[in-house]
């Protein structure tokens, strides 16, 4: 079978044992692979109620069938685990740099990591040579040094997933980093690895990836040619994400920062950055990052561009999520202002200066002093000082900050799928899974039809997503559509298909970034999958696999106690400045509008009013056992 390595590698860190299990054909037929299959493996392996930082938690890593092939932008690495920041079963995904390709070449589609080592280790996967190696010499090191040391020892293009000190010290918002560039696991994957004493995973392989039909090569060629011929390709290659998110002036980037651009394997866009500071106190600092846009985010807090980059370099090296870091600081300061955090606990508010921020980063990473309190994240602050006080201070959803909004840090006030998706994502706010043409741009609604067709959305759903005014009474009442308009945009209903499409792409192994995945359609994805694997599927079936995996992820979280109450919008969204409607930018987004969109989203999904998949939907997706699991726990389906 082309595309798949054909094996799942099970690693028990406590016993020091590894086992290679043949990849189940039913698993890939129902869930494709990559993220979808990882969700299924995690659903079966993580018992409801598991403490995320206990040995019982499991990390499932997966690469989809396209990973390691010539299909453009197919390097995605996914992980599923129970996240310590909010106790949700969460997906994680990253541009896999060389990790994804190397894992597949080593002969594995998935790695399942269980239990806990008694001492620091790293996992070495070199073809059939699997070894749990002593990591005493790496423990205590940052992401950068850990990765570099492993490359020094094993050469490149060895793929490395590593954690820094934040993960080691179980900081609830620590992440893992792929090839010291891409972030993996907002919500605490780093801490889960740390709790298992797992410092890193290093992979290299020589086995190759096969294909079932020469048609696969033809399709890849045609796709690459189409991308090569795109008029904006050079601009994307030159500027990366700065094209859509102009976080700093182009001239500053080109003249004072840009050193090189880097790609994940098979990516024709290459929108990851190597930047180097040319002047000032941080002259010579070189930073590898998934985008220069991320590194300058602290400029919002008054830092200069070079201070911002250095600050993010420090956070990344500790292996800490920048967004949550700033969220906890903001929350602490607000609690201080309100007198909830007293001077006995904290001498003064946290300053937004470079020196203060890196000092607090260190305190958090090593859990020193009051840094230990911040290391528990927004959920920890809420448990200690009261949920309402923390909720007033920041835009919290499922214990994490919803980072796109009119009050920043990613400043954007049109209420599109990414913004709404921050509420309903089962893993907590993360915008990657709900992309659409609403992504940081105001586009005419007629453009949406092409996008919807590309995702294989059925005609009846297209009419619900772009309803005529008289067909959408709630839209008329709320002002989201006016009688004079031809159609409106129902963001709630659209989000369902964005998520399913994201799940298909992530399960195949295609990048989450629109610059690459805009060239894919459900029809092409089905053709590529069929030609690669020899399993013939139609686009509708492939989309059904995505829907199945998303429903299973939702069910996994329903099993953990999540429901509509956890999809509620943060109160801070309704204080000025608020979101405004996507298409006109004229209607304030109120709590009532969000509630209405939640209802419509659930309805489009076939979920009940409490946000739980209905029995009917689960049976339609062939998830009989999930019905039994949920009913067994007394959850209404």
């Amino acid at each position, binding site marked *: 079978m082309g595309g798949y390595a054909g094996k799942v590698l099970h690693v028990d860190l406590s016993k020091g044992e590894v086992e290679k299990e043949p990849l189940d054909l039913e698993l890939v037929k129902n869930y494709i692979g990559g993220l979808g299959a990882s969700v299924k493996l995690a659903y079966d392996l993580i018992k409801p109620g598991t403490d995320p930082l206990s040995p019982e938690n499991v990390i499932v890593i997966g690469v989809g069938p396209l990973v*390691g*092939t*010539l299909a453009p932008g197919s390097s995605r690495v996914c992980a599923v685990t129970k996240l310590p920041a909010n106790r949700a079963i969460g997906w994680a995904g990253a541009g896999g740099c*060389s990790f994804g*390709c190397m894992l597949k*070449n080593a002969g594995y589609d998935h790695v399942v990591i269980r239990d806990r080592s008694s001492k620091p280790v790293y996992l070495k996967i070199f073809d059939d040579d699997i070894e749990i190696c002593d990591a005493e010499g790496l423990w205590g090191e940052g992401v950068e040094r850990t990765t570099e040391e492993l490359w020094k020892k094993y050469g*490149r*293009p060895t793929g490395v997933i590593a954690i820094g000190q934040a993960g080691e010290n179980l900081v609830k918002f620590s992440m893992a980093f792929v090839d010291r560039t891409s972030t993996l696991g907002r919500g605490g994957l780093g801490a889960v690895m740390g709790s298992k004493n797992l410092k890193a995973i290093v992979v290299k*392989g*020589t*086995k*190759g*990836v*096969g*294909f079932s039909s020469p048609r696969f*090569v033809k399709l890849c060629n045609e796709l*690459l040619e189409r*991308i*090569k011929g795109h008029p904006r*390709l050079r601009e994307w*290659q030159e500027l990366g994400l700065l094209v859509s998110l102009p976080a700093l002036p182009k001239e500053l980037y080109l003249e004072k920062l840009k050193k*090189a*651009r*880097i*790609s*994940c*394997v*098979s*990516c*024709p866009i*290459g929108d990851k950055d*190597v930047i180097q500071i040319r002047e000032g106190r941080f002259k010579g600092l*070189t930073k590898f990052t998934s985008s220069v846009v991320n590194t300058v985010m602290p400029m919002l807090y008054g830092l200069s561009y070079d201070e911002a980059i250095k600050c993010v370099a420090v956070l990344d090296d500790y292996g800490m999520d920048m967004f949550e870091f700033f969220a906890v600081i903001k929350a602490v300061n607000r609690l201080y202002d309100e007198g909830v955090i007293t001077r006995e606990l904290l001498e003064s508010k946290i300053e937004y200066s470079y020196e203060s921020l890196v000092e607090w980063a260190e305190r958090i990473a090593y859990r020193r002093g009051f840094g230990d309190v911040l290391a528990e994240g927004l959920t920890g602050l809420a448990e200690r000082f009261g949920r309402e006080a923390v909720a007033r201070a920041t835009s919290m959803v499922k214990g994490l900050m919803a980072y796109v909004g009119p009050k920043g840090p990613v400043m954007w006030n049109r209420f599109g799928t990414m913004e709404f998706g921050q509420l309903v994502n089962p893993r907590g706010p993360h915008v990657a899974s709900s992309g659409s043409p609403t992504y940081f741009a105001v586009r005419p609604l007629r453009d949406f039809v092409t996008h919807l067709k590309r995702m294989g959305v059925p005609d009846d759903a297209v009419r619900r997503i772009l309803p005529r005014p008289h067909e959408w009474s709630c839209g008329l009442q709320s002002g989201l559509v006016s009688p004079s308009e031809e159609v409106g945009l129902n963001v709630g209903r659209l989000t369902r298909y964005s998520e399913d499409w994201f799940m298909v792409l992530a399960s195949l192994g295609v990048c989450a970034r629109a610059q690459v995945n805009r060239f894919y359609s459900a029809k092409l994805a089905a053709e590529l999958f069929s030609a690669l694997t020899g399993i013939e599927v139609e686009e509708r079936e492939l989309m059904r696999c995505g829907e199945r995996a998303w429903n299973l992820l939702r069910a996994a979280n329903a099993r953990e106690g999540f429901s509509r109450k956890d999809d509620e919008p943060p109160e801070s969204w309704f204080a000025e400045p608020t979101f405004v409607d996507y298409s006109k930018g004229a209607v304030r987004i109120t709590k009532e509008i969000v509630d209405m969109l939640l209802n419509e989203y659930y309805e489009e999904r076939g979920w009940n009013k409490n946000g739980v998949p209905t029995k009917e939907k689960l049976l339609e997706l062939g998830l009989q056992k999930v019905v039994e699991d949920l009913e067994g726990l007394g959850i209404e389906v």
Partner: protein
Amino acid sequence: MSGDVTIEVHPEKCTGCLICQLCCSLIHHKTFNPSMARILVRLTDDSEIIFTDDCDKCGTCARFCVYGALEVKEVRD
């Protein structure tokens, strides 16, 4: 097609996408396997691109390169 071109290398333009290695192994071994490629991109701070002794300069890698790091320079008679 073998031996009919020379390939000019501009390592500073290389982003490490390994498309060259993937298509090389595809042409010569009918598989996607970077370790079997006759062109090797050494990912370091300054990428280095080398050809193995058995490279027959078929030019496939350069034709696939999206970044201008490999360029088919001259077609021989």
